[in-house]
C-alpha cells in the first residue's frame, strides 16, 4: 500500500520535471531569438567585415569606434548627449525632490487635482505637445536672443551665448525641454517615496536642533536616496532615448546628440556601413547600462530599522 503511494508520487514528480524541462527549452529558444539582434550589434561592432548578417567575426577590431571618433563628430555627439541629458537629469532631480516632498506633506485641497494634472502631461503623446511647446519656446527664444544682443555686440560672443542659452537650437532649451518631459514621473516617484518616510524623522531632527537646510541635507536626502536613484534612472534613460525633442529643437550640427547623429548616419544613402552603425549603437547603449549599474547600488539600499521595534 505504502509502496503504491510512493511510486505514484514519483511518477508525478517525473512528469513534472519533464514538462518543466520542455517549458525551459521553449523559453530559452524564445530568448535566444529575441536577443539575436543584440548579439549581432555587439559582434558586428567589433567585426572588421561587418555585414547585415549575424556571423562569427574573423578578428576583433576597434576601427569602427576609432572611425566614429576620428572621422565623424562622434565625440561631439556623445558629449552633447551626456551634457544635455546629464544636466536635465540633475535639474529634474532637484525639482522632483522639492516638488515631491511638498506634494507628499501638504494636506491642501489642491493636492490631488495637481497630482493628476502633473501626470496628465505624461499621458499626452509628446508629438501632440510639439506645436504648443514650440510656440512657447519660440517666444522665449526671441526674448533671450534680444537680451544677448543687448549684452554684447561682438558677433562671435553672441553666437556662443546663443548656443548656450537659446531655447531653440541651444543647450538650455534642450535641457529644459527634457527636464519638463521627465519631471512628471519623477515628481510622482519622489512624492510616493516621501509618503513612505515618516514625519518623525524630521521632527526628531527639529528637536535635535537641525535647521531646515540641515534636515534636508542630513536626514531627508539620505533617506530619499533610493527614490532619487529610481527617479534619476528613469529620467536619464528616457531622456537619453529621446529622439523627438532633439530633432525638433536643434538644427545646427554642433548641437547634434547621439540619437540624431545615428539617425543621420543611417540615412546616408551611398553605402550603409554596418560596422559604423553597430559601433554607434554600442556607444549609445553604454551610458544607459552605466546609469543603471550606478543607480542599482542605491535602488537596493533600503533603509529599515529606523522606526518601530
Amino acid at each position, binding site marked *: 500500500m505504502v509502496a503504491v503511494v510512493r511510486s505514484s508520487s514519483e511518477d508525478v514528480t517525473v512528469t513534472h520535471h519533464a514538462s518543466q524541462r520542455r517549458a525551459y527549452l521553449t523559453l530559452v529558444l524564445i530568448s535566444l531569438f529575441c536577443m539575436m539582434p543584440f548579439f549581432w550589434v555587439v559582434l558586428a561592432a567589433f567585426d572588421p567585415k561587418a555585414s547585415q548578417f549575424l556571423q562569427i567575426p574573423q578578428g576583433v577590431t576597434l576601427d569602427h569606434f576609432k572611425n566614429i571618433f576620428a572621422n565623424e563628430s562622434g565625440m561631439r555627439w556623445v558629449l552633447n548627449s551626456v551634457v544635455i541629458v546629464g544636466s536635465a537629469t540633475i535639474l529634474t532631480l532637484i525639482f522632483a525632490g522639492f516638488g515631491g516632498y511638498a506634494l507628499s506633506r501638504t494636506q491642501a485641497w489642491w493636492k490631488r487635482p495637481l497630482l493628476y494634472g502633473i501626470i496628465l502631461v505624461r499621458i499626452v503623446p509628446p508629438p501632440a505637445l510639439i506645436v504648443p511647446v514650440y510656440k512657447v519656446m519660440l517666444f522665449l527664444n526671441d526674448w533671450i536672443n534680444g537680451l544677448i544682443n543687448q549684452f554684447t555686440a561682438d558677433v562671435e560672443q553672441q553666437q556662443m551665448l546663443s548656443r548656450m542659452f537659446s531655447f531653440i537650437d541651444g543647450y538650455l532649451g534642450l535641457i529644459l525641454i527634457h527636464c519638463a518631459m521627465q519631471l512628471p514621473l519623477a515628481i510622482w516617484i519622489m512624492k510616493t517615496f516621501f509618503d513612505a518616510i515618516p514625519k518623525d524623522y524630521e521632527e526628531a531632527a527639529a528637536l535635535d536642533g537641525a535647521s531646515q537646510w540641515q534636515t534636508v541635507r*542630513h536626514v531627508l536626502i539620505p533617506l530619499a536616496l533610493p527614490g532619487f536613484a529610481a527617479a534619476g534612472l528613469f529620467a536619464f534613460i528616457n531622456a537619453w532615448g529621446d529622439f523627438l525633442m532633439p530633432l525638433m529643437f536643434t538644427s545646427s550640427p554642433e548641437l547634434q546628440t547621439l540619437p540624431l547623429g545615428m539617425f543621420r548616419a543611417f540615412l546616408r544613402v551611398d553605402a550603409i556601413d554596418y560596422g559604423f552603425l553597430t559601433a554607434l549603437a554600442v556607444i549609445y547603449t553604454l551610458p544607459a547600462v552605466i546609469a543603471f549599474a550606478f543607480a542599482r547600488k542605491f535602488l537596493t539600499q533600503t533603509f529599515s530599522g529606523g522606526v518601530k*521595534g
Partner: protein
Amino acid sequence: MSHIELIDIKKNYLGTEVVKGISVTIDQGEFAVIVGPSGCGKSTLLRMIAGLEDISSGELRIGGKVMNHVSPDQREIAMVFQSYALYPHMTVGENIGFALALKKVDKAEIKRRVMEAAQMLELEHLLERKPAALSGGQRQRVAIGRAIVKRPKVILFDEPLSNLDAKLRVQMRTELMRLHREFGSTVVYVTHDQVEAMTMAQKIIVLHNGYVSQLGKPMQLYREPENTFVAQFIGVPKMNLLRGKLQGSSFYLQSGQVIDIGNGFTSGNDLQLGIRPEHLKLHATSAQGGWTVDVVERLGVESFVHLHNATMEQLVVRVEGDCELAADTQVNLQFDAASCYLFNDKGQRLLRKPAIEQAAG
C-alpha cells in the same frame, strides 16, 4: 529651574477641539505620567510641549519662561518618539551625537559625551552599528541615548515601550526609573497603559476626552478616584460598578439584592456602587447565592472570577491563590463596606460625611 506649567492649554484641529483646556504644573525633576485611552489627546499635548504642534490657546511655561512661540530646539527639551525615529543611515554613535554635531561641539567632546551616554545605557559595543542591526530593546536605548546626550532639562516620552514585548517592557520600566534618578531631568511620559503609570509615576495626569479627569500620586488615584472614569481606568481588573439606589446604609441593586455599604452616604436613586475586585469576598454556597460563575481566570498566584446576577449585572472578584470553581456555580458575595465607593449618575464620586457629623446628624 525647569518646572513645566500648562495654563488652560487648548488645541483645535480644523475646528474640532482635541485638547480642551488643560492646566497642570509639573515640578522640577518630577516623573509625570500622562495616561488615558487612545485618542484622548495625550500625544497632542506632549507635542505641544515639545513645540512640534502649535498651541491654539493657553500658555506653556518651562522654567518660568513662556514657550508658546519658542522653536523646539530652543526649549532645552528632548523627546523619545514612539517610533524611535532613529536615522537609519547613521550609526548608533552618529545617531546619539547628531544633536551635538549640529551644534558644532568639538569632536572629542562629542565622542566623550556619546560614550558617557552609551555607558549609561550599556550601548558601548553597539556604537558602530546601524539601527537596522539592533533589537527592539536596543533601538529603544539608542532613542533614549539620543535624548539624554543633550543634557536636556525636560525629557518627553511618547509611549516609548509600546513596541516592546511584555518582558522587555517590565525591564525597561525599572531602567527608565533608574535613569530618571541618575539624571534628574523633569520627565513627561505619555502612555495608555495604567500599569506603566502606576509603577513609574510620581504624578499621574489622567486625560479623558481632552480634559484632565484627575491628577495626583498613583496610590491617591487608586484610593480616592474622583469619578467612575478614573476608578475604572486605574487598577486591573477594573473597579466593578453596579447601578441601584441607596436607603440608609443599604444599597438596592436592580436585581433586588441588598448590599450593606456602611454609614455616611446620603440616600438617593440612580446611583452607582463601586467596589474593586480585591475588596470582594466569595463564598461558595449550595443555596441560591444570587451570583453565578461565568468564567474563572486562573493565574496561579491569584484568580479572577467573573460573575453575573439575575439581571445580568457583571462583577469580577479577585481570589488569592488558585480557585477551582466551575462555571454556573452559585456563589455568595461579601462586600467590604469600608471599601465601597459611591458615584452619582454622572459618574462623580460622592463622599461619606465624616463620623463626627454622622454622630451629630
